């Protein structure tokens, strides 16, 4: 009797476990538990956890808050589009807008300082992808996500969009500067 036929005996559930199966199930189960506990463990002892802090917002409100820090902390502009580069004080709230097809403004942060980075979209979904760090976060319209982050190495980083957002998705890229104090 094979697996494409009904089991030979009606009481198939009485067949004892083979040693191979029993051993493997035990090992696999322990491994599943290890993997499960790794996640809470990392919340306590690990340093890389995605924040749970988020608020509902509207494009107008979010635009206005971003405009405020742009007005206060812009240090220069870059490219033909005159994208403002914002250098906010260490430890402050920093705002980044995702919209078709631009990240706005550009940010300049200080090495070793902690910032509260706000992320929201003005229109469709976008994907915040910081390279080469490779930190990837989904950006929604209507939700303001607050991620606390600490750049540890000075340098020029890129933010690209990795959630498909229409025909010019691949043009949506920006910079993030991390400078030494």
């Amino acid at each position, binding site marked *: 009797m094979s697996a494409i036929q*009904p089991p030979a005996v009606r009481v198939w559930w009485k067949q004892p476990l083979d040693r191979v199966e029993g051993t493997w199930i035990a090992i696999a189960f322990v491994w599943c538990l290890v993997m499960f506990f790794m996640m809470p463990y990392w919340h306590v002892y690990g340093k*890389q956890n995605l924040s749970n802090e988020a608020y509902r917002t509207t494009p107008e409100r979010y635009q206005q808050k971003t405009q405020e820090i742009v007005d206060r902390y812009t240090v220069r502009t870059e490219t033909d589009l005159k994208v403002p580069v914002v250098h906010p004080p260490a430890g402050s709230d920093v705002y980044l807008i995702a919209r078709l097809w631009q990240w706005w403004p550009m940010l300049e942060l200080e090495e070793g300082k902690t910032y509260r980075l706000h992320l929201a979209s003005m229109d*469709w979904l976008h994907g915040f992808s910081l390279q080469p760090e490779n930190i990837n976060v*989904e950006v929604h319209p209507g939700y303001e996500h607050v991620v606390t982050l600490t750049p540890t190495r000075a340098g020029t980083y890129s933010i690209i969009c990795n959630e498909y957002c229409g025909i010019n*998705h691949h043009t949506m890229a920006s910079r993030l500067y991390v400078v030494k104090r």
Partner: protein
Amino acid sequence: MAINRNFRTCPTTGLVFHEQADRLIRWNAVAGVVSLLVGGVLALLVTLTRWPAVHLLPADWFYLVLTAHGLDMLVFWIIFFEIAVLYFCGAVLLRCRIAAPRWAWLGFALMVIGAVTNNVAVFRGDSSVMFTSYAPMGAHPAFYLGLILFAVGALIGCFVFLGTLVVARSEGTFHGSLPLVTFGAVTACIIAIFTIASGAIILIPTFLWSIGLVSHIDSLMYRTVWWAFGHSSQQINVAAHVSIWYAIAAIVFGAKALSERVSRTAFLLYICFLQLASAHHLLADPGLTSNWKIFNTSYAMYLAVLASMVHGLTVPGAIEVAQREKGYNRGLFEWLRKAPWGNPVFSGMFISLVGFGFLGGISGVMMGTEQLNLIIHNTIYVPGHFHATVVVGTTLAFMSMTYFLIPVLFRRELMFPGLARWQPYLFGLGMSSFALFMMGAGTLGVPRRHWDITFAGNPLGYEFPGTAYLMMGIMALSGIVAVVGGIAYLLITVGSVFFGKRIGGSEFKALSVREGRASPPAPQPVAAAITGHGSIGIGGFVAPGTFTLALVFLVAFVLYYFVNWKYLSTLWPLS
């Protein structure tokens, strides 16, 4: 109308085919293969565009073709074939007539109309929204309508399958419990019903939104419900291809489950836990708590992963036992060395199993871990993962099954048997390498669904490291090998079905209910049937070779898991 009770018996395998079931299975399989053909052409175009050195299509065509590739492959090819598998596991394995064949044809017609409508919407050019169609990005209403029609058709197919089980029971065409393979198909069917319900909950409002009757679709709500549909449908695939693995082990080796209890419980775990898994698509999203994410993505403690790890042992274990009982009992691996590696039914199934476990399974757990998702989300690692699961795993399993079905179902001899020997290797190994290098590029941050990673002409563009380009190149070359394997498959199947030499000796004859009844199994002393497998194996292990392979798998899994945590720990601190 009188019920069609015409049956034929296959002279080589002894399987019994009901006339309507026979025709339905064939038509669904053919519709699936046609979708595979279209999706395959698109796959080549997408691959050649993502190969930086070639960069074939312009951006608008790339996004259009990628949308169509995702839909034709993941939705239409897979689900048409799955309906065929359900009817096979129901009507054929239970030697029964199919319930309500007219409904089954209606379902099939809806699926065809839906698939065509959706494709037309995409190729018109205003619905390049990817198969996920995340609101608030909108497609033409026909895009959603096509998907809804297709889903309704598939739902009818599921109920026809369940109805067939009822008919088989009431007409007594089998005794005792369902065969294991049919049981697996039932789990796939139950998951499918849940899946389609979630699909309706999200696609119907989105359709109404696209024609202006609903004013707003929340993007987070959309992603949450969409993935209850999108992820669960992947578990249909898993349940279906695991059933096929068992079926092929049974067909090629006469294998039976090591223990029915373990294998069936593992199938049940899929039903119990996998709906939660859809949450692992939302790990990088705002507005959900970590507790919610951890509970759901671990499938409430990885019990569905456990189920797959169990099947990963019991399927080859069943083959090992069957081989050892035939006398290939020496050493750890004689059973495997002496397996019919030139038979595509077996080789395809075995590559599917190994590739699904090592590449698809391990990478899936990485992405589904709350924190590790940060370094993987939306990179090309993701398509790397699912080409290992749904292409190496599901598609290749379905391909191997067709090599069995062509003689018994289509009653034609296989054409190009020499090519068929090689096809699983070309497709399976090409695809495995393709998936592996996609994952490699993803680890370096290369995004998925991206037309130009060189950011040509963009003053703010990012320059990916040279290794990323190298990996994308090798990925594309491997993809081309897989496409050649896919062409070989289409050549063999289409050729055989239309031009293969006919196999006679199995005509349909009317059979009364009484004649169709199964004869009761020969009485067997219970004690003998439930004790183990005799004196095969090593050290009390009936399948020591499989166990060794399983340990190799575990070591790879554990190492790679902690390598990823190590990588994560080098990132900027985030909280």
